[in-house]
């Protein structure tokens, strides 16, 4: 399985999200991937992501959200990251807004890699140090470096 730091490209990182609301944040991050031609059908992709958002909270607490979906619209597992100083309401169980948002999409037939990536990312993001470094990083390259170091 590829490392999270290898899956995340610099151009798919937004140090300050413009959007203030959950669905618009997801669209903003997805647009990065659409612009790179990584998503075949934007409509199908959004349907898959939003269907999941309607059924569950992808805010995992500690200021982190990981909206995700498996969909026919992508050929490979892809990742985008956005940061929000103000925080976005992702309906986390701890009631806190999300400042770090990772969008993950995987092909429908890559369930194992998808679950493993979600699990590894969730585990990493429970580390206070890592979250603090991500919050204070000054450049997309630094975001990737910080994650790479945390992965070991």
């Amino acid at each position, binding site marked *: 399985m590829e490392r999270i730091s290898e899956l995340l490209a610099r151009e798919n990182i937004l140090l300050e999200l413009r959007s203030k609301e959950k669905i618009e944040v997801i669209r903003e991050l997805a647009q990065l991937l659409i612009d790179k031609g990584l998503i075949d059908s934007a409509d199908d992709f959004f349907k898959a992501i939003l*269907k*999941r958002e309607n*059924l*569950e*909270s992808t805010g*995992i607490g500690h200021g982190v959200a990981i909206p995700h979906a*498996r969909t026919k619209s992508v050929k490979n597992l892809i990742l985008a990251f956005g940061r929000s100083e103000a925080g976005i309401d992702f309906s986390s*169980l701890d009631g806190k807004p999300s400042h770090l948002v990772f969008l993950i999409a995987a092909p429908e037939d890559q*369930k194992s890699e998808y*679950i*493993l990536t*979600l*699990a*590894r990312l*969730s*585990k990493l993001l*429970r580390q206070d140090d890592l979250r603090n470094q991500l919050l204070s990083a000054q450049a997309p390259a630094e975001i990737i470096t910080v994650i790479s170091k945390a992965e070991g």
Partner: protein
Amino acid sequence: MMQRIFLYIDGSPAAHRAGAWVIRQAKEWRSRIYVLAVVDTAAIAAAARRTRRPRSKLRGEWEEIGWRNLYEIEDDAFEAEVKVSLIMEEGSSLQRIAELAKSYEADLVVVGYDPKVDLDKLAARCPCSLAVIK
């Protein structure tokens, strides 16, 4: 009506069967499932002594396994169009199940059968009905 079902998973076959049962019931009852995995600190300490591996390393491995179990159930719940929330905690499994079931006002707690678990103790601490799936 069982609006909030609290499912504890530990990766065991019984927990997997419990998950399948909960998803079926939740679909029928239109319930939300709260799925809990616990990084059991006492179990990690015992494993560290037994294997002579650092606790921090074991903790990281067990937490990742816990998250995998959570996302497996989440994916199954999503396919069944059942509302689900994931919870990762640390500490004593029995204690966390009871505390969080109370905190989230669970109507039903479901666990997979484990002969090592003191079910009487769990039932006594549970704030609601308890179902054990074999």
